[in-house]
């Protein structure tokens, strides 16, 4: 190739092919990150609509807007959608988009795996949503306790879709975790030692390891469930000398670490956003980093607190109660670090900062109610009431949805290249914040009054009507607040002022790139000499000998794990349709298993394997090395 300027050469090398083929074949982490974000946001909207349907049913006593069966299906789909297909994937979306930019790499370590995990995520969601289209949704809540899910009590295909869609999602999430681990450990820019990584890298790295260790329990549980339901085994069936509690053990061994998987990356984003809008470096960087890691580790010793009412030895209960309270210390460390950053800085009240601070407030409330439920006698009282619903929503909306909105207001100018309306953003925040508290705070009260969760209606004489009406109103207001932000983004996409490289005067490497970034990110792989590359005097792209231009092929630079000293140059794969095809055949494999079509399943497995072989087959490089 003889193209004059390095920029042109890099563009030719890294740009995806034109047209529909390129759209499906792209392995660019920026394309895939945006798709993750959009898909996860669509699932948020779907899950939100399901929530509003439930709130309409519960707005007044003795309503019959939804039948009990429909209500069961809708609350189950709401939980499953939000927990599995929204909360973690939206954070993966930010990570897929931002991690390579933040560490100065040209792409993820396994770009084709990255494409596969996105398509697998999308198709697993579609597999799940075939169920409601057939009128046979899962109906046993997001944690689907046995024996509700036994074939005798749940003869429809709903639970089969649940089990197999989750196995599919597990494949996707595990692949993503492996990709993040290798990317963050080996692709950091020269000089970005482990002590200089942005804190978001610590949280992404931690949850990726947690994913590797926690998700197999869910896979095993879902495999057992499917075998019990359709293939005659007896893992959970008392009559077959099985044990239904085994499901709970496996599910929560996965389930509680999962809570931190949907929580830690969001705190990592707050640890980047709060300092930028406090106009100073974060206070207590090492403390935040260590408490992030410790949250991930100790997160494995709390799962039994979901099962205090099951019956177990005092020793086991004490241990897990202590574990549950210990873990709040690490979150507290982070909260105090943010507060100290604010205290010592000169805060700027942007829309993003509004969401970040609101998130901290909600997180503290949700965290406190979590400490209460970690105390065994309180837990026995509050178990399966709306108190738990209030807790989970304060924690998940406070530590996931609000940080995600903060992140959208902070990073969308980088992604779209256009600024958003700050005033509308603040309006959106206040409406959401008011609606959320109006909708969810009364749940603490009705819970303590004894209103059980997952109940499709309540009686007029129970005295719950007013508070429930308030909750429905709050839910609708929350929805309006979200709608304001959606409108804001849509308008800014067309008419927002151009953002430029670094609209917030931030410190991270991602702000060194154009907005939106070029396919190759930066012309020269940057070098880093401090924790705040854009706030120090060092010129990250200075490269007089064009050592780090790497424009001979799709190349990027690997570095050593701890010190980030340059190690080698690696070739990156070109754009290909194979990951999409492999995801489609995996989809067919699992769809076949839902209906026990053995031969279709076998054929799909063989096809997936052959696609994998073609995927890994050595092929010539793009470019002329």
């Amino acid at each position, binding site marked *: 190739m003889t193209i004059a300027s390095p920029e042109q050469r890099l563009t030719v090398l890294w740009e995806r092919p034109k047209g529909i083929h390129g759209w499906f074949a792209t392995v660019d982490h920026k394309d895939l990150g945006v798709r993750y974000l959009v898909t996860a946001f669509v699932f948020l909207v779907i899950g939100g609509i399901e929530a509003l349907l439930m709130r309409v049913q519960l707005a007044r006593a003795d309503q019959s807007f939804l039948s009990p069966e429909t209500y069961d299906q809708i609350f189950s789909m709401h939980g499953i959608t939000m927990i599995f297909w929204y909360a973690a994937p939206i954070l993966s979306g930010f990570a897929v988009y931002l991690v390579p930019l933040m560490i100065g790499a040209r792409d993820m370590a396994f770009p084709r795996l990255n494409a596969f995990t996105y398509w697998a995520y999308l198709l697993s969601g579609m597999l799940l949503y075939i169920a409601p289209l057939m009128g046979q949704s899962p109906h046993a809540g997001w944690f689907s306790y046995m024996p509700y899910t036994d074939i005798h009590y749940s003869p429809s295909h709903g639970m089969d879709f649940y089990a197999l869609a989750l196995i599919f999602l597990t494949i996707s999430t595990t692949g993503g*975790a492996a990709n993040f681990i290798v990317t963050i450990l080996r692709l950091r820019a020269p*000089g970005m030692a482990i002590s200089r990584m942005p804190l978001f890298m610590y949280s992404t790295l931690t949850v990726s390891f947690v994913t590797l260790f926690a998700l*197999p329990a869910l896979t095993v549980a879902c495999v057992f469930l499917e075998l019990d339901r359709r293939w005659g085994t007896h893992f959970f069936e008392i009559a077959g*000398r*099985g044990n239904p509690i085994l499901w709970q053990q*496996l599910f929560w061994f996965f389930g509680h670490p999962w809570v931190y998987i949907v929580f830690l990356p969001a705190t990592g984003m707050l640890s980047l956003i709060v300092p930028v809008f406090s106009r100073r470096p974060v206070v207590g960087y090492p403390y935040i980093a260590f408490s992030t890691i410790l949250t991930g580790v100790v997160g494995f010793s709390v799962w039994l607190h979901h099962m205090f009412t099951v019956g177990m030895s005092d020793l086991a209960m004490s241990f897990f109660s202590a574990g549950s309270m210990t873990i709040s210390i690490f979150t507290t460390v982070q909260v105090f670090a943010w507060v100290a950053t604010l205290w010592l800085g000169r805060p700027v009240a942007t829309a993003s900062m509004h969401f970040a601070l609101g998130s901290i407030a909600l997180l503290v409330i949700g965290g406190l109610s979590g400490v209460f439920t970690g105390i065994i006698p309180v837990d026995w009282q509050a178990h399966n009431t709306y108190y738990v619903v209030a807790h989970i929503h304060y924690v998940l909306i406070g530590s996931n949805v609000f940080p995600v909105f903060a992140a959208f207001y902070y990073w969308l100018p980088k992604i779209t290249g256009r600024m958003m309306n700050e005033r509308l953003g603040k309006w959106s925040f206040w409406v959401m914040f008011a609606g959320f508290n109006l909708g969810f705070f009364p749940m603490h009260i009705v819970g303590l009054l004894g209103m059980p969760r997952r109940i499709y209606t309540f009686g007029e004489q129970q005295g719950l009507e007013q508070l429930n009406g308030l909750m429905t109103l709050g839910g609708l207001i929350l929805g309006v607040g979200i709608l304001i932000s959606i409108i804001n983004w849509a308008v800014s996409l067309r008419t927002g002022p151009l953002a430029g490289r670094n609209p917030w005067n931030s410190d991270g490497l991602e702000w060194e790139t154009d907005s939106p970034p070029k396919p190759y990110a930066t012309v020269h792989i940057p070098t880093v000499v401090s924790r705040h590359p854009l706030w120090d005097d060092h010129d990250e792209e*200075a490269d007089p000998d064009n050592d780090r231009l790497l424009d001979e092929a799709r190349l990027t630079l*690997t570095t050593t794990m701890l010190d980030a000293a340059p190690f*080698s*140059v690696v070739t990156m794969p070109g754009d290909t349709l194979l990951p999409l095809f492999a995801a489609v055949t995996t989809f067919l494999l699992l769809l076949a298993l839902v209906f026990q079509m053995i031969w279709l399943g076998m054929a799909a497995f063989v096809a997936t394997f052959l696609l994998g072989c073609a995927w890994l087959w050595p092929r010539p490089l793009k470019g002329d090395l």
Partner: protein
Amino acid sequence: MSSTLYVPSHEGAADRTRWPLEADFGTYGMYTLIATESLLFVCLFASYFFLNSDDRWATDQPPKLTYALIMLFVLLLSSFVLGWGEKQAGAEQYGAARLALWLTVLLGLGFMGLQYFEYGDHWKTLTPMSDSYGSIFYAITTFHAAHVVMGLLMLGYVGILPSYGPTRVPPYRPYHVAALYWHFVDVVWIAVVGLLYILPNLQGHVRA
């Protein structure tokens, strides 16, 4: 600490060969796969002991050891053969490496054959449908067998890879990556034999 940190400099700057063209990501990727797969088996074993915790199983007859021990020997032997092959591949003795690889595949197929007879023997008294002991026994061994199949497919794939392809990367890496997986499958079988076969036979009964 800070003295060991890399400080970028332009002194003595370089030609294109300053950094070698080399990717060891595959090895790292395989480590993550092995980490997550290990936990898969940990969960399976934990389920085994959980189901066994309160005397609920119908049978108390420990599974026969003979086949399991022969299978253990076959798999261990295959791992040693493959380990020798890795050494050859590292020393660029590709012929010997390829031979060791196909020998490993043969031993793996032998393992699968033995498992077929072992199942046939067991099936007379125990099926996955008989009770939760049967379910978990067959689940663990079948999960392992599925991993053997995956390992064989991987090894077979490496076996047909061209010696040096257009990427100009020696085939040592894919060889090494597939071998790592095979050793893992081997180690899992040691755990399976120890916990599901040897332990009950030492106790004289299956129930805890």
